[in-house]
């Protein structure tokens, strides 16, 4: 029997329906849904930018030293005659990593879906601090613009890699980039503040504003993961902000935190960066895991397998994330004894990750699997994340990392987890929640084609990179043909580049489809996927304030295919006297 029998006692929305002026409604809006949509468009734009940078850098690697088609549109300082310069190449790599991590994937997961889903899934009207939420978006927007503008300043954009290792990043005389480096740091400091405001909101909202009956163990896993992610952000990002500001000081007011001549320590930067950086990569994967959990349960028409262990796995991954950062520094000159302990803690993370992967498989087992685009992307996530995670085991082993550190093996790993993992989950989420967000459907067939193309070309781009890495190809090099041991790899590099162009084209296909559906898609019903969680109980798109009456929650989030029922789903707020589910 369900545990809650109380009468629904929600509050009516106290919203005098006077129309808001345009600027308050669409631009400086405090409605979490509008903010989420603002984030969505901004981030997709940055995704396109990041992808374009990737395409350019892949051109150089595929056809070293050849003029890039359309490259003569770029200024002389980047690509004279269309031929990419070495310094521009490193800028491309740096900004590609930066845009993808900070301005595309992370805000897509958190800015978009934490904002959109949390209030709807826990059953409340809005975030705890709507005004801060608005600020969070606009600060993000500004930091993105600052980052983008660094391409236009003299000397070009940052060239120190997305990891900004000091002292290269702190010594303009060594990197040749002055303003670009500083803009990188200023932008990230603003970004840090923006995501701080977001995190405060998400954590407070989940703790305090859950609907009656929405106990901790009735939260959908998407919300759980976003909640844990927000905590990670709260504790990890300030460290980056602090570090970035110190780095900025090193360049501007003459401090010497990371400059060795006067006793500063380059390795301190790496420690601080990765103390943030590893939790950061879990910020990039945990929400993805949450979305995929919701979607796989829905697409398999089955309750999630092992809900509680899924939650505890999330929590332990998050916690372990704080004690493994040193695995990025095995070859950095860090104390080898310390490296040993970092290796152990890193290997431990495979265990909760295994729980997650096998529980997703358990969810599909004896399900009734639907081949909707979101389900395909979610399943694609499981397949590709597993590959990326397994390649992580190679690097976690310190001796093996001696060889593969800073090679394309790492690049393969990071794209399998970030693209195959996070971005696939984001695609799944876009397909899944699009009807709710915009009140329109995306065409299933188009979605399946998009999935097939992305899946195939993704693997063609990134799987061979494992081979390149085993062959010893270093990261961030402009021209591999300089080295004897890399001479035989040009074919592979060209294949990878060609596939990368095709991958980008599949992205453009999605772009077209996205906008087409936005205006021409079929009208979406309230609950197109017969899902159980609360966001599917409000109109598509939901009204301002979400609920006319706060729902009361009676069940866990994944009551699919209950044997006593005809329909195969039972929404979280359906009265228990209608049916009596066995548990939760």
């Amino acid at each position: 029997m369900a545990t809650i029998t109380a009468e629904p006692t929600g509050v009516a929305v106290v919203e005098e329906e006077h129309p808001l002026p345009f600027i308050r409604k669409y631009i400086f809006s405090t409605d979490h849904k509008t903010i989420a949509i603002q984030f969505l468009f901004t981030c997709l734009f940055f995704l396109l930018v990041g992808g374009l940078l990737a395409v350019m850098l892949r051109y150089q690697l595929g056809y070293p030293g050849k003029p890039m088609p359309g490259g003569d549109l770029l200024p002389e300082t980047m690509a004279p005659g269309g031929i990419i310069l070495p310094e521009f190449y490193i800028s491309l790599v740096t900004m590609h990593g930066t845009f993808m991590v900070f301005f595309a994937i992370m805000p897509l997961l958190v800015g978009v879906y934490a904002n959109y889903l949390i209030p709807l899934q826990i059953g409340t009207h809005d975030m705890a601090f709507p005004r801060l939420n608005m600020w969070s978006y606009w600060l993000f927007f500004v930091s993105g613009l600052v980052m983008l503008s660094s391409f236009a300043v003299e000397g070009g954009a940052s060239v120190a890699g997305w990891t900004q290792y000091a002292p290269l990043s702190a010594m303009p005389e060594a990197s040749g980039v002055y303003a670009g480096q500083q803009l990188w740091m200023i932008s990230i400091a603003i970004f840090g503040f923006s995501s701080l405001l977001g995190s405060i909101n998400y954590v407070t909202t989940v703790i305090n504003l859950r609907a009656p009956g929405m106990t901790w163990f009735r939260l959908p896993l998407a919300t759980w993961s976003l909640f844990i992610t927000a905590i990670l952000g709260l504790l990890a990002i300030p460290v980056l902000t602090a570090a970035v500001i110190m780095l900025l000081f090193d360049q501007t007011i003459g401090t010497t935190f990371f400059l060795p001549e006067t006793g500063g320590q380059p390795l301190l930067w790496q420690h601080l960066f990765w103390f943030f950086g590893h939790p950061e990569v879990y910020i990039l994967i945990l929400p993805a895991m949450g979305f995929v959990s919701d979607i796989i349960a829905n697409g398999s028409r089955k309750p999630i397998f092992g809900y509680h262990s899924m939650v505890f796995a999330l929590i332990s991954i998050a916690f372990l994330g704080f004690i493994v950062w040193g695995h990025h520094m095995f070859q950095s000159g860090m104390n080898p004894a310390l490296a040993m302990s970092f290796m152990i803690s890193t290997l431990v993370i495979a265990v909760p990750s295994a729980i997650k992967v096998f529980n997703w498989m358990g969810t599909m087992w004896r399900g009734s699997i639907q081949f909707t685009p979101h389900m395909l992307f979610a399943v694609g996530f499981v397949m590709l994340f597993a590959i990326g995670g397994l390649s992580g085991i190679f690097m976690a082993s310190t001796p093996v990392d001696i060889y593969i550190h800073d090679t394309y093996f790492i690049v393969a790993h990071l794209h399998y987890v970030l693209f195959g993992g996070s971005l696939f989950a984001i695609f799944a989420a876009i397909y899944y929640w699009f009807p709710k967000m915009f009140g329109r459907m995306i065409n299933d067939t188009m979605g399946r084609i998009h999935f097939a193309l992305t899946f195939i070309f993704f693997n063609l781009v990134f799987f061979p990179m494992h081979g390149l890495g085993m062959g010893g190809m270093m990261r961030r090099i402009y021209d591999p043909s300089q080295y004897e041991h890399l001479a035989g790899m040009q074919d592979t590099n060209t294949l990878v580049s060609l596939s990368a162009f095709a991958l980008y084209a599949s992205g453009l296909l999605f772009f077209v489809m996205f906008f087409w559906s936005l205006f021409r898609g079929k009208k979406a019903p309230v609950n197109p996927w017969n899902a159980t969680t609360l966001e599917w109980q409000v109109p598509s798109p939901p009204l301002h304030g979400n609920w006319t009456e706060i729902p009361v929650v009676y069940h866990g989030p994944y009551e699919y295919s209950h044997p006593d029922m005809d329909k195969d789903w039972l929404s979280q707020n359906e009265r228990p006297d209608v049916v009596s589910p066995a548990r939760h």
Partner: protein
Amino acid sequence: MSEAGKQHPRYMLVFGGLAVLTAIEVTAAFMGFPRSVTIIVLLGLAGWKALLVALYFMHLKWEPRALKVLAAAPLLPAAIMVVVILMEYV
């Protein structure tokens, strides 16, 4: 928390404590104890003062347990960060 005439903690007592502890600290710093002793004593005193502020001025003493835990939680990653990086030197 908002009933009229609520009993307040003895703020002035806490204030006195903080002032005295500060005075002790400043004196202790220049007493010429062995360095390690000075450091431990000073850190102990500073921790004590910090605790007084948190418990009484920030009312943590009267908050629900969950909030106490929440307030103390970041100390764990903070300590991990500093201590682990310091292990570079051992």
